[in-house]
């Protein structure tokens, strides 16, 4: 575990938008019977990006992350994203 003093640590979770074909998710779902698992559906495969942001306060840090998430980390035509604050400056994060 690392402490990033002076920086906010965020996770950006990117997932395919509802209705967008997700062949990865479908392939995972189709493999489940081979594991002897049933009753699992709606598998969607996305991407998680974690990053540190040095900023004056949390809302300034979030503004930076929101911009990155919308312009670079996701393609809004096909993907949705959620921003999650993992830790604040000085406070040890969960992992």
């Amino acid at each position: 575990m690392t402490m990033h003093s002076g920086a906010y640590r965020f996770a950006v979770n990117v997932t395919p938008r509802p209705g967008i074909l997700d062949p990865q998710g479908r392939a995972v779902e189709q493999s489940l019977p081979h594991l002897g698992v049933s009753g699992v559906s709606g598998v969607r495969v996305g991407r998680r990006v974690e990053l540190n942001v040095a900023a004056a306060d949390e809302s300034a840090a979030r503004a930076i992350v929101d911009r990155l998430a919308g312009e670079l980390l996701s393609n809004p035509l096909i993907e949705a994203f959620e921003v999650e604050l993992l830790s604040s400056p000085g406070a040890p994060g969960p992992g």
Partner: protein
Amino acid sequence: MRIGVVVFPGSNCDADTMHGLRVAGAEPVELWHETADLQGAAAVVLPGGFAYGDYLRAGAIARFSPVMRAVAEFAGRGGMVLGICNGFQVLAEAGLVPGALLRNRSLRFAGREVSIAAQTADSPFTLGVPLGRPLRMPIAHGEGCYYADEATLDELDRTGRVLFRYVDADGRVAVDPDDPANPNGSVRAIAGVANRAGNVAGLMPHPERAAELLLGSDDGLLILRALVESAAAQPTSGRPSAVIVG
């Protein structure tokens, strides 16, 4: 007729594209991704490959390179820009052509010869290309499944901006995404589209890999020639880029 070919780290069709353009009668010039100088090119081609390793999403990082700022400005002035394969993905990520390229429906990288057919005679990118005739050329991509929402697709159809569709050997459009003639599951079998102004186009198959009979087909030469001849006919052709965007 000078035509710029952009080279990103990870481009791998740049030399083939330059050769194909030479066969089509143009004088190709390399444009390194860190330059914003288009060297007076009358048109720009973004070639295939894996720009910036295709990290995040194909084309996502290439979009922010200095050369793309210059290409966007050039396109805004009406300059012709053609993105082939990975170049199409870069243009889509940059919002210079509509839609997005998703992972192939099969989840497999598709590298084989396909047939496409021109859908409109009113585009500079299909100048002299026989309408509806199957053109044979290779594809080589893992993310080529064209997607756009229904409203965008309807608008593309209505305004004649679907330039090419995947067809079978008889020229029948492979609308069913599971049709073997539709190699990646593209919606409405779309293989190539243009922007609203008509001067920027993305194309998934590789015309430069089918530009000489030695390669098994020279159908791709029709598309390269359309670009060269249309660029030559443009009023702004040959003039150096005069506008610099900071």
